[in-house]
């Protein structure tokens, strides 16, 4: 008898088996599917984490090697002269008696637990101070961002569409004013004219002193007053925020208007736009679906940077309007040599920029497939 296992011819396959075999054969040989966007996001995220560590390290060393003694601001002349044990106790409390490398290690170890140290200026944990100050800046930044983007895109597109006309020139001059004027001066002028002279808006601070702030949910008075059904606090908070918001909007408009205009002009002169016009599409359709869309990517990048800058806090504007946000906190920390406050603010600003760029990059990847493939 022959070995049928070795020499037997393959059994004839049914059509169903054949199809299954063919599918299996097809599956084995088809190219693997790629997920470029997911890989792009993961890669960028890890880069962000490394960047945060880098920012933290640079901030730490720059802050700790300044040629000034941060304890000096907290020690009186009498004590500094004749009570060395008090000086030693204060320095020990601030951790200044440790070598730099030990302080670096302690700082990052605590950072991993979310502990940014204690502010020598406020005696609060820095994380708590930043959590208190950040909503004030966030609230202001969101309003400024929305106003800035809307107005600058409107004016930028308008200028691009009416290129080289009188309207274009007016818009360009306006943008030059916005870029050129010093922020502190504009803030003082706005405060003087619109609050002091015209009484159109409320003065400094986030709320009238006679009003009790709404219970904290987000820390943003506008949101919290709505959540707590307090229309008086809402309108009062709105009245207080509008003047610094309009001031900051004015100061940020100029560069964004010019950028929007330039991007729109480049998009309008691109081949796909010319092609669309050649096809006979209506002008409005070309503007919205080709020019606007084509210009959106670079504008998106620019607005991301603008939002990052706003979230970092505008020191001069916050100071003039007594808007106790991140900018003012960082300034007070710097002038008082509050090392933990300086490092915490610096790290926060760095993280904000890093992650805003991260999200902008992801958005670009979503909007423009060419980015993720690259």
């Amino acid at each position: 008898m022959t070995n049928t296992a070795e020499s037997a011819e393959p059994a004839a396959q049914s059509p169903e088996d054949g199809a299954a075999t063919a599918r299996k054969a097809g599956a084995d040989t088809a190219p693997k599917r790629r997920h470029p966007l997911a890989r792009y996001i993961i890669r960028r995220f890890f880069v962000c984490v490394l960047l945060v560590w880098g920012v933290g390290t640079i901030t730490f060393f720059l802050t700790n090697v300044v040629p000034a003694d941060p304890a000096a601001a907290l020690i009186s002349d009498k004590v500094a002269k004749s009570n060395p044990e008090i000086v030693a106790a204060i320095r020990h409390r601030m951790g200044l008696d440790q070598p730099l490398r030990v302080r670096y290690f302690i700082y990052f170890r605590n950072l991993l637990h979310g502990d940014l140290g204690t502010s020598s200026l406020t005696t609060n944990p820095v994380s708590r101070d930043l959590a208190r100050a950040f909503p004030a800046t966030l609230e202001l930044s969101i309003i400024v961002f929305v106003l800035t983007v809307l107005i600058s895109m409107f004016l930028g597109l308008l200028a691009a569409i009416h290129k080289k006309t009188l309207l274009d020139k007016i818009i360009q001059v306006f943008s030059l004013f916005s870029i050129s004027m010093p922020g502190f001066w504009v803030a003082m002028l706005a405060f003087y004219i619109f609050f002091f002279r015209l009484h159109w808006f409320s003065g400094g601070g986030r709320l009238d002193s006679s009003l009790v702030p709404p219970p904290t949910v987000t820390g943003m008075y506008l949101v919290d007053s709505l959540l707590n059904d307090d229309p008086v606090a809402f309108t009062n908070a709105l009245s207080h925020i509008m003047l610094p918001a309009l001031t900051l909007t004015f100061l940020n408009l100029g560069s964004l208007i010019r950028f929007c205009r330039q991007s729109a002009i480049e998009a309008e002169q691109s081949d796909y736009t010319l092609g669309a016009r050649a096809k006979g599409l209506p002008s409005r359709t070309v503007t919205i679906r080709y020019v606007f869309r084509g210009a959106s990517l670079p504008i998106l990048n620019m607005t991301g940077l603008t939002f990052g800058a706003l979230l970092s806090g505008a020191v001069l504007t916050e100071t003039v309007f007594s808007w106790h946000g991140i900018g003012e906190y960082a300034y007070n920390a710097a002038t008082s040599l509050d090392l933990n406050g300086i490092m915490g603010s610096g790290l926060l600003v760095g993280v904000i920029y890093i992650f805003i760029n991260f999200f902008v990059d992801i958005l670009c990847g979503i909007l423009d497939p060419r980015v993720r493939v690259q």
Partner: protein
Amino acid sequence: MRRLCALAVSVMCCVSLGACGNGGNSAKGGASKTLTIDQTFALSSMDPQRAFEATGYEVNHSVYETALTYKGSDLTKIEPSVTTYKMNDDNTVLTLTMNGEHKFSDGKTVTVDDIVYSYQRLQAIKGNPSYLLDGITVKKVDDKSLTLTAKSSMPQMPSILVAPPLSIVEKSVVEKNGGKLSPEDGAEKYLTDNSVGSGPYMYDKVATDSSIILKRNPYYTGDKPYYDRIVLNNVAATSQKMNLEGGNADIAENISQDESSKMDSNSFAKVSGMSLSTWFLSFNTYAPNAGIAANTDFVSAMKHAIDYDKILELIGPDTQRPAGLIPFSISGAIKSDPNLTYDPAKAKEYLAKSGYDGSEVKLIYSDETAHLSEVAQLVQSDVKKVGINIKLDPQTPANRLSQSRENKTQISISNWGADYPDPANYVSFLPADPAKDGETKGWSYGKSDTADAIKPYAEAAENAKDEDSRIKAYEDLQHKLDEVGPYIPLYQPSSFVMIKSSLKNVTNNGIWGIDYAAVSA
């Protein structure tokens, strides 16, 4: 484009809504009487036994009580508060006896144990104000009294007890929240957010870099204050005038003389008080860093080269110039001294003796204090006329302090504000005593002829028994300091605040500023 226009119109509507949102009482907040004060904060801690700056003093004066006090802005007469006092004949033992009933903000009664604990905590935690009770032993006698015993005659003890760091805290609460009689005391954080005092107000919300809100202490046993709430806002000096005139604030504490003179005198009033702060030039005596600034003839040249009247004119009306470092309104202040007269010819003589070679000498000062840059420029131009080249070096306050403490400066513009109104508070200007303070690079006995020349005068002032001989001893000490010391007193500014004319009983005390509980409308 149409959609963008619609969005733009919506935004304009929001802006208009914001413009209409002025004022009004919150339905949640009720119609409470609120006093709003704008101040540029000087604050490092709200813990009463650690607070050492103007803002901390002012706030804590209204939140905590002290054993003794002053009435209004009169610093000449000590009044009983939580206790009465009696000093023994040789000024070494001060006996305090409870004076009526006082209650903390949680309703508990203030006891002798609380007072003893507060003073011992001040000594033990080694904070900035701890030196105030150096060399004093605090002891409970019975449930009604305690004693403070000094090692040597200390007539200034009652004055010290008025200072806000001697505030009385509730022992049980502080201990429960980390309070210890040692530098490891952990109650500072709790005391920054929560008050444990028996004063007319208590903390409601504290953000030490932006605003401090006080509310009534419901258990306060004294006269009920007029205002329900006190809101103290940290506002830049440049914005305070507009805030006050625009109705955003009731009191502004940091408006400059120039700005105040332009305000409507019908609507706003100035409340003045003599500040206890003296501004002076200080010369580093550590020769390796100070160079020519450590030379006594050079210092004498500077003393005669400055036109002091011009500085007074610059700072403004009500500014005075004591001839020593002790300001007027504290006993022992002197009006004039022959070593501090404007005499360019004499200045040139001293300069020639000093061997000065014309090189630049740095003058460091804080760039955040009103008028200081003008004062520095005035000094620079005055001394230039006799041949001294000054280079101006503005710094942040923290940097200036840091460099001064490390003896890295040559000349600096400094100030000293009294913690209590007694000349003994000014002994920090005396040379260091290596026997007590250890070795130091600064001016100290045994290392400098000028320091040794001061020593007998310092000892006489410290050991003087009765008030008249004390005053004479401090006057002589200051004359000697003017002759050989490394200081040039420049001016004592007036201290004033601007208020709405509708306010009443606003006093400006040289130690703690405004007494919120006394203010009414």
